[in-house]
């Protein structure tokens, strides 16, 4: 590729950060200093586009922002046109191409936090640090809703530091300016401070009969031995007994459907991928978890990381994948650290890599961090993101099972979906199906927020009896920002039951709204979320989400029938004509609030 550069140079620090990831350049042909030798021969630099996102992270982690010199050096190293790399860098909310302080505070102002006083935290931060933009910014849901209101400070350095403030109070906020001193060691991995024990997110910790949550808060998430002692790796052994086709049969028979939101039968997806003649096959674990109010995947990854490693290994075995990507959202530093450790340990102990458990299976996992983009959780946008393209959804067909990551057959599954495969194999499909577990992310006006595991069939009321409610419950938002408000607490928490009630289980969000919450500002926050997170590719969503927000602003000042008609028409067009699920669901919650809660009556 014939590339033209403007000649901006990276700083020493930027160069070091990029070389630490990619190794030193081999010659001037891939970004090294030009020598006499280079002028006498031409070398071909291999394009390595999929390293773009990791390289941008490397610079951002070390320096805090991405300068033109840094971007140009990355482009030379990876043979990427600078205009395209710029397009990728500007796609992600966690990156900046403008200078900014090393430490940036991300203050969650999303739904669960708003229900728990995020507004006063935000105001205090604004008073203290000045207007949003450089040293702090408002953030969509940080996935710590059980400890709302939440904030996360990310500080560039070696290593970068992630400091969690949850719950954040207007009082602790003033101490947020004083970061812990950043050490100058050479470990590239992130240092996490301010975290709470895993069990704090799981009110049922230690309770008998849990399947998915049984180890969380009771088994050391860092210890592979403890994992094995607590039943770990029996499912993989069982998988080897069954063989790939046998595993798929069990998963089909179990009736497992995806937990990422779309509820697609997992067994069918695996079967279709396994049958694809084109190779290699890829496995992608979708751990982008950015639906407001969702934090179950984080709790699994932090509290039981080996379970995910084992489950991915089984999925890969069944579908014939030699390589799996674990794509995890960039705002989950502790989960990233836990999984890095778990993957490295499993690899060192022969549970990843070549000839796993001596059974001839070759499989390894590469962890990829997102960088602040809800849309990258969409099943084809995630491929583009991994490949180093802008995280825009692709049009379907073709579907991922045919042409997915790098154009090859790909299974993409949610974290919770994958870990369900362990009890399916351990107990057998039928025993599993008789008491199928589902996780719920309970937040908002409740006494004991957190992740709950229930057997399918329980009602919303039963779930809220467990968590307890505070104030007078006015409505429950099921399924997150892409979901719907319901008022009937007797609906069964099943895919069919919620559908019949005009709602969705979605990603398992159960956000309880009491009568103290201002519904209009909640709806505005939802509209703002979709406006911010739209990738911008298609007109109905790119412009429609803006018009929806504008109309809601007008409506919260003055109810006007024309604006209600306008919302409905724009909403229906987003639903009918958008490319992907983001635009198609951007009006769901607003519609249900108007129709069922009478917000603008």
């Amino acid at each position, binding site marked *: *590729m*014939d*590339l*033209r550069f*403007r000649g901006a140079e990276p700083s020493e620090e930027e160069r070091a950060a990029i070389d630490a990831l990619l190794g030193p350049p081999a010659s001037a042909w891939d970004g090294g200093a030009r020598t006499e030798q280079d002028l006498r021969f031409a070398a071909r630099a291999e394009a390595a586009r999929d390293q773009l996102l990791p390289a941008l992270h490397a610079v951002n982690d070390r320096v805090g922002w991405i300068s*033109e010199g840094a*971007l*140009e050096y990355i482009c030379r190293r990876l043979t990427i*046109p*600078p*205009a*395209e*790399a*710029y*397009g990728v860098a*500007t*796609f992600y*909310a966690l990156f900046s*191409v403008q200078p900014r302080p090393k430490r940036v505070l991300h203050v969650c102002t999303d739904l669960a936090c708003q229900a728990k006083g995020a507004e006063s935290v935000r105001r205090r931060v604004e008073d203290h640090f000045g207007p949003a933009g450089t040293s702090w910014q408002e953030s969509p849901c940080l996935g710590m809703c059980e400890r709302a209101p939440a904030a996360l400070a990310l500080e560039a350095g070696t290593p970068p530091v992630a400091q969690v403030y949850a719950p954040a109070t207007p009082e602790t906020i003033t101490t947020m300016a004083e970061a812990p001193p950043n050490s100058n060691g050479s470990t590239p991995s992130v240092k996490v401070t301010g975290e709470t024990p895993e069990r704090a997110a799981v009110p049922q910790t230690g309770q008998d009969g849990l399947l998915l949550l049984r180890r969380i808060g009771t088994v050391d998430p860092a210890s592979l031995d403890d994992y094995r002692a607590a039943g770990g790796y029996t499912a993989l052994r069982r998988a080897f007994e069954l063989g790939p086709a046998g595993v798929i049969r069990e998963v089909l028979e179990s009736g497992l459907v995806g937990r990422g939101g779309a509820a697609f039968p997992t067994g069918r997806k695996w079967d279709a991928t396994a049958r694809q003649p084109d190779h290699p096959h890829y496995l992608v674990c979708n751990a982008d978890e950015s639906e407001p109010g969702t934090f179950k995947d984080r709790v699994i990854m932090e509290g039981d990381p080996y379970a995910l490693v084992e489950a991915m290994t089984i999925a890969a075995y069944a579908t014939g994948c030699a390589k799996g990507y674990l794509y995890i959202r960039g705002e989950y530093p502790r989960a990233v650290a836990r999984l890095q450790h778990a993957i490295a340990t499993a690899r060192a102990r022969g549970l990843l890599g070549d000839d796993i458990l001596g059974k001839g299976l070759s499989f390894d996992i590469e962890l990829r961090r997102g960088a602040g*983009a809800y849309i990258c959780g969409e099943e084809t946008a995630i491929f583009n993101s991994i490949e180093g393209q*802008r995280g825009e959804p692709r*049009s379907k*067909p073709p579907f991922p099972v045919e042409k997915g990551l790098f154009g090859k057959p790909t299974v993409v599954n949610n974290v919770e979906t994958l870990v369900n495969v362990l009890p399916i194999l351990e107990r057998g499909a039928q025993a599993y199906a008789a008491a199928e577990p589902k996780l719920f992310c309970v937040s908002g006006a409740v006494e004991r927020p957190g992740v709950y595991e229930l057997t399918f069939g329980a009602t919303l009321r039963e779930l809220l009896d467990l968590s307890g409610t505070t104030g007078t419950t006015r409505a429950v938002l099921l399924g997150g920002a892409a979901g719907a408000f319901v008022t009937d607490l007797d609906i069964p928490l099943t895919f069919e039951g919620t559908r019949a009630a005009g709602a969705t289980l979605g990603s398992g969000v159960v956000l309880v709204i009491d009568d103290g919450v201002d519904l209009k500002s909640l709806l505005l926050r939802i509209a703002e979320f979709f*406006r*911010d*997170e*739209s*990738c*911008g*590719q*298609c*007109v*109905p969503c*790119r*412009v*429609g*989400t*803006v*018009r929806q927000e*504008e*109309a809601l602003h*007008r409506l919260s000042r003055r109810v006007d029938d*024309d604006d209600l008609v*306008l919302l409905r*028409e*724009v909403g*229906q*067009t987003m*639903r*009918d*004509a*958008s*490319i992907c699920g983001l635009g*198609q669901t951007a009006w769901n919650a607003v519609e249900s609030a108007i129709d069922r809660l009478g917000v603008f009556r």
Partner: protein
Amino acid sequence: MIPLQPPRRLIDVEIDGETVRVPEGSTILDACAVAGKDIPTLCYGDTLTPKNACRVCVVEVEGARTLAPACSRKAEKGMKVGTDTERARQSRKVVLELLASSVDLSTTPRAAEWTKEYDADPARFGDDAATVEQPAKVDNELYVRDYSKCIMCYKCVDACGDQWQNTFAIGVAGRGFDTTISTEFDAPLTDSACVYCGNCVEVCPTGALSFKSEFDMRAEGTWDESKQTETTTICSYCGVGCNLTLHVQDNKIVKVTSPHDNPVTKGNLCVKGRFGYGYV
């Protein structure tokens, strides 16, 4: 020479109740053309892979949950397509309203006609509706980028990138409503990889990209297509022999295009053919 292709199977699809027969692999748009239906399109380009971003071409496919973009969805055997259903018309109307309320469509061919046909009312979003209005970028003598007219159809990026020119001077930057077409760090074109082939101008459906001559004449109020003639000739700069269509007004060449149906060049030129007309 065009290589012979294996004969393609013909399939029957139903467009608004009428059965038409098209080769397998055709899009719904192709089938609509056979059925004599006029479907609005904006981001579709006859020389590019459909990006299906604008969604003005949506149609209703029986049994589908959402509407389908006619420009890219492949026609399937037995498919029943409604091009003029209430639902499809409603979406097209709103899409036109969303576009026209945020982008200057004054130089987009047929935009006014469609607005009328679909009874679209862009003004309904009020005076405060956000737009992409911004000053035109005039940073070279050959062509102008007026992104207040840009509908983000990606055609220029595709033409500049791997579909034709392989220069990659421009890309899509930002996200959501703030996405723009941009060079790296928004550098002026003269400082970018641009080679001024004008192939992006050739495919731009809105006039956001235009010859500097056209831009200046429009600003002066002297641009008048009714007074223009078009002559197609062969470029004499080199031996390739590309076709040039010279647009002449008042004895002056005001812009140069190239026929898209040329089997080799498909409307693409180099800087000499496109902008070297000072010598003609």
